[in-house]
């Protein structure tokens, strides 16, 4: 009976995301039809983009960034901590790390390591503020991290001025931190043939972070405490977990990973933090963490799917289909995944309850029979 149940469980957990995607495709098709576009044509246009090596590189590169962001969010989610502040954490971290990277001269590996450590430190520090506020004053991290996003924006804007951390670029209306020299850059990987474009070397860092996340959450005492606290705080306290300490450590970890979010772009492509540095990645991370159900593999798929949609939306526009279609698709996918999993969760609880009930009944019958024969 146990075996049958777990097969059903696996089937259910695969069915949920698939159903969600089918549902999202249906809704998007309806939207496309309503706006006078052919859904199949639009989808095949996007799929056809996958054959282009350049697009493949872009998909992997964006997914690397999205993945780190989603893991940062997921660390908090596992403990029911909503770190909405990944966005502010990564921007502040990337800006300060870029400034440090541009200002110092070190041998290659040390230079990169310093930049990354600065970024992780700044990200952790910024998230740590929200953690301290929560454990000392009981302020919801949802509110404080959103506020901290705005404060981060203000600080970055203040520091990103000529005479502070930014340098002017002649003839340009852009400003940025001093460009990081060769020694502080992470070389790209030529793993996609047919294009001179390179995949971010930081994709390896993303994989390491993913494996580390899985290991810490599933194979360590800390991870157990974290999951226990997320499942039931009172039960965790009763079993001796120091919840305050857990909140601080979890937020610091989440912030440190958030600090990495800007690194693939900074060390692999931009080499400077300017006005055109990508924004809003923290919020993309929230959506992908939801999509991937906080599971390192699920998040990888979620990040790739999201990145595929983002990087092929240009082709839609080229065929005169509004690229906002992709935004609708992304929104519907997240919503339907959340709903599908909730439905599956309830279904499972009912199944477990009825299984347990049946088992109890059977045991009662057996006991009664034994009692009768005694």
């Amino acid at each position: 009976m146990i075996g049958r149940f777990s097969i059903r469980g696996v089937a259910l957990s695969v069915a949920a995301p698939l159903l969600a995607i089918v549902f999202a495709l249906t809704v998007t098709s309806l939207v496309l039809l309503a706006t006078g576009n052919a859904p199949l044509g639009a989808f095949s246009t996007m799929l056809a983009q996958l054959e282009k090596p350049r697009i493949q590189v872009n998909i992997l590169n964006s997914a690397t960034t999205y993945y780190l962001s989603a893991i940062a969010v997921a660390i908090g989610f596992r403990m029911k901590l909503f770190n909405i502040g990944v966005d502010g954490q990564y921007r502040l971290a990337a800006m300060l790390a870029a400034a440090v990277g541009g200002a110092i001269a070190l041998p290659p590996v040390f230079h990169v390591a310093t930049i990354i450590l600065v970024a992780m430190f700044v990200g952790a520090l910024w998230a740590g503020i929200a953690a301290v506020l929560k454990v000392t004053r009981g302020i919801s991290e949802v509110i404080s991290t959103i506020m901290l996003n705005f404060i981060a924006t203000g600080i970055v804007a203040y520091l990103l001025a000529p005479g502070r951390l930014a340098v002017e670029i002649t003839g340009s209306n852009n400003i940025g931190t001093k460009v990081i020299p060769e020694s502080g850059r992470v070389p790209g990987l030529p793993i996609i043939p047919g294009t001179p474009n390179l995949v971010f070397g930081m994709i390896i860092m993303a994989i390491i972070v993913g494996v580390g996340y899985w290991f810490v959450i599933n194979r360590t005492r800390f991870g157990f405490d974290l999951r226990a606290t997320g499942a039931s705080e009172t039960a965790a306290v009763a079993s001796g977990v120091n919840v305050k300490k857990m909140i601080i450590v979890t937020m610091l970890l989440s912030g440190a990973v958030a600090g990495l979010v800007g690194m693939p772009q900074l060390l692999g492509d931009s080499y400077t933090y300017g006005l055109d540095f990508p924004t809003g990645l923290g919020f993309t991370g929230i959506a992908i963490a939801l999509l991937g159900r906080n599971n390192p593999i699920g998040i990888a798929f979620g990040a790739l799917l999201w990145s595929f949609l983002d990087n092929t939306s240009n082709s839609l526009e080229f065929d005169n289909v509004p690229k906002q279609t992709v935004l609708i698709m992304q929104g519907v996918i997240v919503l339907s995944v959340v709903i599908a999993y909730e439905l599956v969760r309830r279904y499972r609880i009912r199944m477990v309850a009825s299984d347990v009930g049946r088992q109890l009944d059977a045991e009662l019958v057996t006991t009664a029979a034994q009692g009768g024969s005694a």
Partner: protein
Amino acid sequence: MKIATMLAAGALALAACSSSTSGTTTTSPAPAGSASAKSDVKVGLAYDIGGRGDQSFNDAAARGLDQAKTELGVEVKELEATAGETDAQKEERLTTLAEAGYSPIIAVGFAYATSLGAVAPKFPKTTFAIVDDASLSEKNPNVTSLVFAENQGSYLVGAIAAQASKTGNIGFIGGVNVPLIQKFQAGFEAGAKSVNPNIKIQAKYLTEPPDFSGFGDPQKGQVAADGMYQAGADVVYHAAGGSGGGVFKAAVAANKLAIGVDSDQYLTAPADQKPVILTSMLKRVDVAVYDMVKSSVDKAPLTGVQTFDLAKDGVGFSTSNDAVTPYTAKADELKAQIISGAITVPDKM
């Protein structure tokens, strides 16, 4: 970036309404019979975030493109940016256009500078242009920079504001605190001080980068302008794109004056706002885009850094509201001095 412009309506009328009375105009009138002309030139336009319909900077470019389409018969393809995208995605957009044979390809906004710098060398036979950036043309012979002397136009409306102010107190509202908008502020303040050295100037930016919502949030514009009027200002100049609508609302409520930006906003404002829009600082992105396309159709594309300044009527002020008439003599005088070089307008704070 996205400085305010208004609807496409009256694009042609605008050219005629430009305050200038002298000087060479860069908008060559369409040759007779060209309305039905067909050209084999394919124009690609890559917008910044917001794209066509942002009632702002992108729309100004779109207006120039529309004019080129109807008058020159060129084929056009318009693509727009997504919020939060990377340079790689911008590169992809420009590459797609270049591979499909579009030339010229016009990138709207300085945010394209890095990506265009990477793409242009790969397509040496394609003509590229970029609005609001002058950092690329030197190294890339196939990139034309379309830049504006926003500080000069702002200087003139600053002089008008100082003359019109009875309280000796005026305001500047910038959409987002970036170097480009600081250039507007620098010109405006210098112009106002040239008329009244003791004038009090309140300045405020609606948002800080990377939050670019200050270019599209009328509510923020209204609150900021309201505060300035209450603090004694009686003329407020905005360089805040779509947020400008809120500035005009606040001006109506306070019964004070406001100055528009990019397009002649008097022409497109609702009737109740018209009287308070004293003038507008014109930044003719549409002219730049049109000229670029026109020169490509004529097989002699513009090259290098093309500065659209007062001398070229690339910037200026509008005179469609009669209320501005008493102040234009002084402004025209200053304009002549700027063109002759007697006055140098600062371009940063």
